[in-house]
């Protein structure tokens, strides 16, 4: 029974933890522009992250090494240094975007400018990562993130949830007045939001700290294969409400308030309150994960002591990188860059570095030296290779499409 609860809790945390500011922005924006015509990309992205997260989990459970640690052995010192720089910078952008999401959610709740909330959010984030029982908080925010279900409720209470949505989802082409370039640009953003690199860094490092072994493989798989798709379902709900409310009016989204508004229209004040809580919970949860991931990648590349189980003074380099990353993330926002735009850029650059993140995982997951008999089977390798092709196409097309479309303009 205890085991059952542990598994359920893990799945629920995975559902709430799946969505972050990237999903919020990409799903809502594309729902407003294209209805559900891009819904298939969310499905494609979820299958991809499931396949690769499972590989990461397996590598951790059998070799007890986090993925980024093994990247350097397999890519060689020079290429992996390049990978480190790229991964770190994208992680930093993601951290900035998540902090921006936290500050915007607080602005929605208090009407105090988000710029004043940025330093507060950054400080609280750092204190949490420095001292507080992290595992508990991760669970708390994962579970609070489940309040996103309010958007699924909203889908059925808003008009136009019938055959119209199905029709949009089943005609995956640019809607009237849009062209293929914009369609492709939003498709890449959505894909990147499902496969954002920090997810696998965080997932595998967490597994090492929780000392996963072969016995935890089934629990890990149930979290991934049940939790992530249900989390993807919440991202689809966000897309659907945007499709119902904004698409018919031809309104383009540019604030986090507009992301929350459909919940207010459908369920009233209480709906709005729950929606704001959900936005806060998922962005703060993701800010913790991206903050840690920034420090994980650096420490694991250079072989430094890392992690939350070691007192900070025994891992001074790790904690310095963590502190500096949070400060830089906050500083980026204080330039008064629009956090929603920052999120869009973050997604594009995530797409560019995706091959650097996922190719080494596929290579390591086939290495008997680390995985013995648990190397990839035919299915995992087929899915892995197909996705690697998709990932490379998305990476190559991301920047040109951003320029051609003026970032979706």
């Amino acid at each position, binding site marked *: 029974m205890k085991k059952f609860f542990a598994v359920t809790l893990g799945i629920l945390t995975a559902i709430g933890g799946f969505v972050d500011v990237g999903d919020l922005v990409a799903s809502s924006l594309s729902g407003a522009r294209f209805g559900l015509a891009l819904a298939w990309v969310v499905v494609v992205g979820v299958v991809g992250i499931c396949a690769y997260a499972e590989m990461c989990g397996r590598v951790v459970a059998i070799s007890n090494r986090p993925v980024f640690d093994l990247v350097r052995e397999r890519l060689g010192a020079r290429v992996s*240094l390049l990978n480190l720089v790229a991964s770190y910078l994208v992680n930093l952008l993601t951290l900035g975007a998540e902090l921006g999401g936290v500050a915007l959610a607080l602005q929605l709740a208090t009407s105090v400018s988000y710029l004043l909330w940025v330093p507060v959010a950054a400080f609280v984030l750092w204190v949490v990562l420095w001292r507080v029982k992290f595992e508990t908080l991760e669970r708390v925010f994962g579970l609070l993130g489940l309040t996103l279900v309010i958007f699924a409720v909203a889908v059925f209470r808003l008009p136009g949830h019938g055959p119209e949505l199905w029709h949009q989802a089943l005609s995956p082409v640019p809607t009237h007045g849009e062209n293929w370039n914009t369609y492709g640009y939003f498709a890449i953003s959505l894909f990147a939001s499902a496969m954002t690199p920090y997810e696998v860094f965080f997932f595998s490092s967490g597994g090492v700290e929780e000392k996963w072994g072969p016995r935890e493989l089934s629990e890990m798989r149930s979290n991934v294969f049940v939790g992530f798709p249900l989390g993807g379902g919440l991202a689809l709900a966000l897309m659907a409400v945007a499709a119902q409310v904004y698409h018919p009016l031809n309104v383009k989204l540019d604030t986090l308030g507009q992301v929350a508004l459909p919940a207010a229209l459908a369920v009233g004040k209480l709906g709005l309150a729950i929606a704001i809580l959900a936005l806060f919970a998922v962005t703060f949860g993701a800010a913790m994960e991206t903050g840690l991931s920034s420090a994980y990648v650096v420490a694991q590349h*250079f072989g430094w*002591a890392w992690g939350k189980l070691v007192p900070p003074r025994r891992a001074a380099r790790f904690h310095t990188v963590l502190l500096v990353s949070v400060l830089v993330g906050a500083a980026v926002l204080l330039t008064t860059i629009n956090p929603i735009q920052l999120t869009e850029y973050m997604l594009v650059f995530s797409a560019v570095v995706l091959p650097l993140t996922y190719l080494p995982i596929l290579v390591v997951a086939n290495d008997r030296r680390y995985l013995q008999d648990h190397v990839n089977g035919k299915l995992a390798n087929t899915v892995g290779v197909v996705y690697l092709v998709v990932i490379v196409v998305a990476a190559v097309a991301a920047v040109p499409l951003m320029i051609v479309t003026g970032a979706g303009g």
Partner: protein
Amino acid sequence: MIGDDRMDVGYELLDLQILDRDGMEVGKVDDVEFHLDEDGVPYLTALLVGPDVFGHRIGGWLGRVITATTRRLRTNRSGPVRIPYDLIGSVRSAVTLTVSRDLLPEPELEHWLREHLIARIPGSGHAQ
């Protein structure tokens, strides 16, 4: 491993994580040290850990910058951390040593950051 006393150093040892007896991270195998025996056959004597040897190994302008920066910031003339081959317990997905990392020289950057920054923040001695 190729045989009992032979291994492909480039593939099996370089860039591997080094852990101490208790599983704490010591560093990466940034480079290795060879000596020649009486017959002129090279044998492995130590693992080297430190940004300067890492920079030296990757070479190019970037490598030179890393090495030069490390040497300039050095407060003493200790050089890279040298781990004698005798201290290696096993080589699998990581190199595990037979001693605690407290017995090895502490990396200078770690020492400096702890003394000047991390240890001054309240609560730095407690794990979560």
